Each structure stands twice: as C-alpha cells, then as structure tokens.
C-alpha cells in the first residue's frame, strides 16, 4: 500500500519551475530519505506533502495523518511546553489533548519542565519540544525537513529512537537530509532529486552506508 504518492508534480515560483514533473511513491511503513543538492526541490516537495504549498500541476495523494517538522521548531515562545503541546493536540483533534501532551513530554524527557516557558529553554530542549510536537498525535506519516541539521546530540538521539519506534509501529517516514550517515541508519529507501525531478528511487544498499559520495557519483548529475 502506498502512503504517499506524487504524480508528475510541477511547482512554479513565477515562471521558474522548482519541481518539473516529479514522481515519487512511498510504501506505507517505509522510511524514505530524500537526497539532492540545495535547490533540487526537496523542501518544496515536502511542503507540498505537508499541505503548506499547492502543486501547480500534477497530483499528490496522502493516505493518513501527517506530522511535520520543518526548519523552524514550530513552538510558541510565550507558552509553556505543556500549553504548546495541548494547543497542538487541539488543532489535530486529539481526543484528550492534555493526556497526549503529557505522554509526548515523557517521550522526549521534558516532563520535569513541562510548565516552563519555551523561551526559557535551552536550544536542545526547544528542539526536543519540537520533536514532541511533531510526534504528539502519533501520525501515520512523518515529514521531516533536514531533521538532523542543527540538532544537538541528545536531540538527535531522542529523534532517532522516536523514529525507530514509529517505524516499528508501522508509520511512514519521509525525510530530506544532507546528513547521509544519520539518515542511512533508518532509511529503508532512498530517492535522489535533481533540478526538480526524482532521478532515482530504490531501496537502500550497503554502498550508500559505506560511502556517502557513492550515491551522488552513481545517480547524480553527470559533470
């Protein structure tokens, strides 16, 4: 079963096409790493999947609830950790937002500071709060835009373990990334984007893990 499918998706910014008929299919329960250079269209594609942007042409199908973690942490500085998460639970229509918030805080290890304002948190704590927010409603599909960039070690560990658990629980993950090593620990599949097109999709293989440059050499743009 497909969790996410993009069919000949075009996205124009003015007359400039950021996506030029990209096709992508992601099986439910798999973890897809989106690779490619800056400007290849990774973020645009993820934003379309998340419903933050409309494709100019083409079709996108999403089967299930979506959790999104973008470049910003998506957390209000003047609300406490608990208030942030209950608000998000209400937006998602979670049955018991307060309970969901408590559980999410537990998962990322912020229970002790649940009533602290987000603005008083350290960088790492804020990132963990963002992770808790994205996972709060236990979404079927997780969309992560360069999740490991700028995370501290602890937040990376928390995120990795949550992603592993989500994957084991049958969730689908799509993440764009530059940190190939971190991504490859989880990724079951890899998609390579090049100037607005998906030029390669396939299961992960040992070469990718051993040598991050291999992928770009093999499927990347010919010099």
């Amino acid at each position, binding site marked *: 079963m497909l969790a996410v499918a993009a069919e000949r998706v075009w996205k124009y910014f003015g007359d400039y096409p950021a996506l030029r008929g990209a096709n992508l299919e992601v099986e439910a329960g798999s973890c897809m790493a989106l690779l490619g250079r800056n400007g290849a269209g990774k973020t645009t594609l993820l934003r379309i999947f*998340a*419903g*933050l*942007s*409309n494709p100019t042409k083409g079709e996108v199908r999403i089967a299930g*609830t*979506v959790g*999104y973690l*973008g*470049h*910003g*942490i*998506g*957390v*209000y*500085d*003047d*609300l406490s950790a608990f*208030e942030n998460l209950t*608000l*998000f639970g*209400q*937006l*998602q*229509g979670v049955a018991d937002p307060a309970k969901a918030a408590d559980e999410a805080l537990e998962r990322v290890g912020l229970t002790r500071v649940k009533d602290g304002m987000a603005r008083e948190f350290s960088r790492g704590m804020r990132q963990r709060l963002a992770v808790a*927010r994205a996972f709060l409603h236990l979404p079927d599909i997780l969309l992560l835009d360069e999740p490991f960039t700028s995370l501290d070690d602890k937040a990376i560990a928390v995120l990795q373990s949550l992603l592993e658990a989500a994957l084991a629980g049958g969730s689908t993950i799509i993440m764009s990334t530059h940190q190939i090593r971190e991504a490859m620990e989880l990724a079951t599949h890899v998609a390579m984007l090049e100037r607005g097109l998906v030029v390669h999709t396939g299961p992960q293989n040992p070469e990718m893990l051993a040598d991050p440059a291999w992928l770009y050499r093999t499927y990347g743009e010919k010099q």
Partner: protein
Amino acid sequence: MTHGFRTAYAIARKDLRTELRTKESLNAAASFAVVILVLFSFAFPLERDEFYAISGGLLWLVYSFAGALIVNRGFARELPNDCLDVLIASRAPGWAIFLGKAVAAFLLLLIVEFICLPVFGLFYNIRWTDSFGSLVLVIVLATWGITVVGTAFSAVTVNVRVRELMLPVLLYPMIIPLLIGAMEATTVLLSGEAMAGDNLYSLQLLVVFDVIYTALALYLIDYVLVV
C-alpha cells in the same frame, strides 16, 4: 465544522493568552490611543458643546489607530519559529485559523476601546453613559469590521518585507466606509439623538460591511495561507 470552531476557539485563546502575558500590542495600542486623545484637544480647541459634533470622528480615528497596531500583530505573531507552517499543516481548516485570530484581535481591540472611552469622556466632558447600550452595539459592529479586514490583510502581508508599513496602507482606505458609518452613528448617539429613522442607515452600513468582508475573508483565506 465542529472541529473548525473548536480549533478557532483554541487559536483565539492562544493569541489572547500570549498577548496578556507579554502585553506587547495592548500596551502599545492603549498608550498610543491616549496620546492621540490628548493631542486632539490641541488640534481642535473647541468649546464643550462643539465637541459633540465631532465626537464620533475623534473617537473612531483613535480606535482605528489602535486597531492598526493590534491587527499588525495578528499573523505576524505566527512568524517566529515558523509557527504558521505548523498551524497550516495541522488539521485546522484555514477559515478556523482566520476566525480564531480575528476573534482574538477583536477582543483585544475592544479592551483598548473600553479603556479609552472613559478617558475620552473625561477629557472632552462628553456624556457617553446615556445611550451606552446602543454605543456598545456600534462599537462592536465597527470593531469587528476593522479586525476582520485587518486580520485578512495581516495574513496577506505576513511574508512582505516591510509588513508594518504595508498593512496600514491597505487597511485604512478599505475601512473608510466603515469608519464613516461608525463616526456618524457615534456622533448621533453622543449628541443624545435617538438611533431611529434615517440615523439607522449608518448601522445598516456597518452590518453590510461586516457581512461582506467576513464572507470574503473566510472564503478567500485558503488562497492566502496556502499559495
């Protein structure tokens, strides 16, 4: 639909809670409004009785200045940490996000207005308690008009470089008919006339304005939020 109204309520509560914690726009709008009220007494050195004729105009100029400061924060409040993305990517429908933010701005502006009203009465010796019920109706109708147009434009300008400059440029021309209606209705009430007969046209105008722009904003907001 139910989920929509529930999320609108949650967003309005969130906006009010953060605003009451930081009081950023409340303090700015209230103190600015009072200063303008003081300045008007030098701009129009009139006798006490003459003030009644321009009372509605004075009051609504002050209120619209305060309103611009309040709605300026509307969607801009969602910019730090990319919170707007989170709102849009959540299951909350666009109209509910808009409604929540408009209601919050509406209540905040009402707070500022009811702080200013007694100050206004005091400075200019104007009795505003006589027809208080009708006055509240006029204030509520016109304030909703200001905040619904203002919040819509705060969404339109949220990604504009010089947002703070552009919002008033859009807002004031658009609310001119609303302000004309509110000024007239308020002058009528403060002068002790009855809200009846021809004087009712101004109320009708306020209602028509509110209905048209509420409908337009709720209908068009999805185009604004997801491009």
